[in-house]
């Protein structure tokens, strides 16, 4: 029997309501919707996320992740919403809100979880800057946590459309809730490649772990 506290019930209801509102507010599809599958693998977790974008402002998807330090598993739904975009001839800036909720499982114990994230990025064809702040809550499984991630990237060459694009990036992650000091502030140099609908990232973090991310769009 799963115990669901009032606070979690309220947060989960809010999540479902927002998903419903998003579906209602979605504009008619004037172009073929895009599907994306992405997998993130780093020192903290292995995460798979499949989503569909009905418009350029929203995506809805399913997620599954395994936290490597604790063996906790999260399975849920995720809504990504583009809050703001600024285009110029040489750059694009975005501000996103992401909400991920579902069921967390640890040692045969299950609890609803909720994560909220605000993320922003700015990029030109040469430079890339990104920041995200994430709060997560799973009642009995954790006391709630907050972490931040930032990225700075530079392209060693500016590639044309359809060519292989290469980026050198440095990711900094702040996870104050981690018990091990080496996991509290992590720096990860990485290289990103993308060509057409495929993206691949390879890196090595300061706490001596591999980063391996990939994305495919179709």
């Amino acid at each position, binding site marked *: 029997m799963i115990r669901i506290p009032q606070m979690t019930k309220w947060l989960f209801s809010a999540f479902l309501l927002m998903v419903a509102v998003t579906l209602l507010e979605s504009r008619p599809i004037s*172009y*073929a919707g*895009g599907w994306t599958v992405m997998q993130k693998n780093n020192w903290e977790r292995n995460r798979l996320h499949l989503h569909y974008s009905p418009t*350029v402002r929203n995506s809805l998807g399913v997620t599954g992740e395994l936290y490597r330090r604790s063996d906790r598993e999260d399975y849920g739904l995720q809504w990504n919403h*583009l809050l703001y975009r600024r*285009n110029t001839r040489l*750059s*694009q800036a975005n501000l996103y809100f992401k909400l991920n909720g579902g069921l967390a499982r640890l040692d045969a114990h299950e609890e609803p979880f909720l994560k909220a994230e605000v993320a922003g990025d700015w990029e030109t064809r040469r430079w890339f800057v990104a920041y995200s702040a994430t709060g997560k809550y799973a009642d009995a499984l954790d006391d709630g946590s907050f972490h931040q991630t930032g990225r700075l990237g530079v392209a060693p060459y500016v590639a044309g459309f359809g060519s292989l*694009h290469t980026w050198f990036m440095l990711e900094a992650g702040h996870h104050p809730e981690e018990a091990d000091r080496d996991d509290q502030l992590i720096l990860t140099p990485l290289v990103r490649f993308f060509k*057409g609908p495929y993206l691949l990232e390879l890196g090595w973090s300061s706490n001596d772990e591999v980063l391996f991310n990939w994305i495919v769009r179709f």
Partner: protein
Amino acid sequence: MKSILTMKLVILAAFLGLSLPLQAQAEAEEGNRVVAHVEGMVCDFCAQGLLKALGGEDSVDDVIVDLDASTLTVVLKDGASLPNEELDRIISDNGFTVSSIDRKGA
């Protein structure tokens, strides 16, 4: 002397006869091209959505992306049209901003 002159005239006529249709064809092709200057198109991933959206239009034969020039060249099918307002709407719905649209040969 007269025969040389006649030969030159024949060659000139042949050249004009060949080049004029070619020029007309080139002008017609230019007329089928619409160039949109797009803001925010800074990566391949960005442009993929535009290709997908415009490629699905009945009037569109081909789409050429130039990230250096920040342009999207839409090649229309013979006899087809794509009004500026419609092209602007498709690009805007994909999250980009159209700064101007050129219609070559129009």
